[in-house]
């Protein structure tokens, strides 16, 4: 246990250093992709809170990324400074997420999946059709990049560090959250809502919070997406992205803190690395997902965990993956 921690610490430090120096060897495109990785990781972290820790499946994360992106794009192109719009984006997503959480109180698992899925598509249609507001299919172009303390972030490198800083910030906050009593309550909610309820855990409120927080992080990642791509249009925020984020979280290991990081690497960075495989990459990706679900529903990190952990009986409480106990909770207040 002890030296496991130590090793992890070293590796983490190495990773941090690496992320800091990596872009120096890269052309703008490479840096762009790394930045995109950071942005997507933030969105995935959000989903991991909802799905991985609180065990509520959501197929609407793309919608929240979109809402955040559109709010930032719309306001900054109308001369607003970045930060207010950024906060506004995050907060409004938090609010919408809270509301979307209510269905989760009535229905579970696949039904919830479909409600959120429908929500995502509706939001997409609004982006697409309400031209007066969102610019419709033409989208919103020339989204300005913010400056921080007077220095401009127009260069790809500068903006990469901006994204990275954000990722660090979000990670730290999330780390605190899941280590706090809230994190404990989320896990309880996921593993056995009925028991949690009988121990005074207000599952209703925690469910809403889990949704809202996940959504809020989605909004934040969107608020950074807009100035990163400097163009916002409906296409990227269709259902596809939601499914993709879901796969990222599950692939990396839902309920594991570093799951989203890993998942985003597989979904965002690896395709670049494996460019030569062309169409075959997605096939490989799909096959990987299928195999993981068959042999390790807790994702890559779950696998790693099982391999490195000293051999012990580990009751299968697959994170976010409908543990038997939670299934019992269906339809009960």
């Amino acid at each position, binding site marked *: 246990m002890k030296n496991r921690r130590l*090793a*992890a610490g070293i*590796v*983490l430090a*190495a*990773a941090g250093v*690496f*992320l800091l120096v*990596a872009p120096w*060897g*890269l*052309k*703008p*495109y*490479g840096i*762009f*992709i*790394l930045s*995109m990785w950071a942005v997507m990781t933030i969105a995935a972290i959000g989903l991991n809170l909802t799905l991985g820790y609180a065990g509520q499946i959501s197929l609407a994360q793309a919608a929240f990324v979109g809402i955040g992106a559109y709010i930032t794009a719309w306001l900054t192109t109308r001369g607003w400074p970045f930060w207010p719009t950024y906060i506004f984006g995050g907060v409004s997503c938090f609010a919408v997420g809270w509301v979307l959480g209510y269905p989760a109180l009535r229905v579970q698992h696949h039904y919830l999946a479909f409600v959120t899925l429908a929500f995502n598509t509706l939001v997409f249609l609004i982006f*697409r059709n309400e031209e007066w507001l969102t610019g419709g*299919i*033409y*989208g919103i*172009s*020339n989204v300005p990049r913010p400056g921080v303390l007077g220095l401009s972030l127009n260069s790809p490198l500068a903006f990469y560090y901006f994204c990275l800083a954000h990722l660090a910030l979000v990670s730290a906050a999330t780390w605190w959250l899941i280590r706090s009593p809230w994190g404990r309550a989320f896990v309880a909610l996921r593993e056995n809502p009925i028991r949690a309820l009988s121990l005074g855990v207000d599952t209703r409120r925690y469910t809403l919070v889990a949704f809202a927080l996940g959504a809020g992080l989605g909004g934040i990642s969107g608020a950074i997406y807009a100035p990163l*791509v*400097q*163009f916002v*249009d409906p*296409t*990227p925020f269709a259902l596809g992205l939601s499914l993709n984020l879901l796969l990222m979280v599950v692939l*990396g290991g839902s309920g594991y803190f*570093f799951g989203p*990081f*890993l998942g985003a*690497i*597989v979904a965002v*960075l*690896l395709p*670049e*690395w*494996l*460019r030569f495989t062309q169409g075959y990459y997605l096939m490989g990706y799909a096959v990987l997902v299928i195999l993981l679900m068959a042999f390790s529903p807790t994702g*890559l*990190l779950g*696998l*790693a965990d099982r391999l*490195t952990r000293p051999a012990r009986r580990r009751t299968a409480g697959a994170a976010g993956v409908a543990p038997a106990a939670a299934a019992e909770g269906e339809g009960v207040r």
Partner: protein
Amino acid sequence: MRRSIFAVALAALALAAGTAGAADVKMAYVGEISGSIAVSGGNFRDGVILAVEEINARGGILKEKIALTLYDTQTNPGVARSQMQKAIDGDPYVILGPIFSGNVKVTLQMVQQAEIPDFIGGEAAELTTLGSAYLFRTSFGQQIGMPKIANYIRDELKAKTVALIWVNNDFGKGGRDKLMKELAARNIKLVADVSTESGQVDFAADVVKLKAANADAVFVYSNEEECARIMREARKQGLKGPFVGDTTLLSQKTIELAAEAANGVVGHVGLTADAPIPAVTEFAQRFQKRFNYKPDHNGIKGYTAVYAVKYVTEKKIGKFDRKALAKIMHGLTITPQEEPGILMETTWDNVGEIDRISFLAEVVNGKQNISKVLPKLGK
């Protein structure tokens, strides 16, 4: 946890390594290889490839072979931007594509900043009004096509009312707005205005709307596949027409997909492999031989663009100079005598808009027949 870190390391090392490889004279095709208008993008790409292979076979441009790199926008503006960035990082001499107007629009500025000439396939009217000095069309913008169609509807079909069905994307909306203006100018009434999704498959309801309008003419403006589906549904529901369209409706792919449902469709075609011009026919044969399918107008667009670059670089500049290329292209006319690869006499004006002869065509038992040749506007 460990695992994750290793993966990061590997992935990014790969990134660092990935962007390498210098070549003779670089060209980049940035276009729709997949996504909702992959058909057009694929045709354009193959046109480019054919030209590049021919030119390289004859020793390249200024004795330098062309190294062509392909980038797929997936018909998704976000991806288009990143792929265009990637292409620009590769420092190409010219860029070919995108074909989807929306993608052209979002990448236009990057290209201008990089000062790389870009031969686009997009036909949305506004593109040439955005003031890029490095943007060149390879086919008519809608503001040139639509008046010709409006005239056709008034003079040939003698239609007083028109029902319009269009695809709700940059291309479709741009064309529809333009056509509505032109129709109004000729006081032809628009009795139905049906918007459809890109990639839509079920047109039952939309066709019912068109039927309800029973107009003198039905104008169909969408991408090839949707055009075909609309025609099939129209045939299925016994909507009589006459069906008028632009290049896409009469394109080879549409005809193949719609089969007999396409018969009787008439319209204006900016470019077509069936043009009664020997050079074009021979091109079509070479294309067919190389890729074993019949090229549509996008094939010609890609093909001629590469030859235009070759001609200007060799005959006008004598060296590889992007700025000069862009400068000279403006207001330039290239004739087949000067450069056979251009297939048809072509003129670029000072905003990169293009002028060529164009055609009125009709689909007769699964084949496009040119009924009339319209002269260049400049003449």
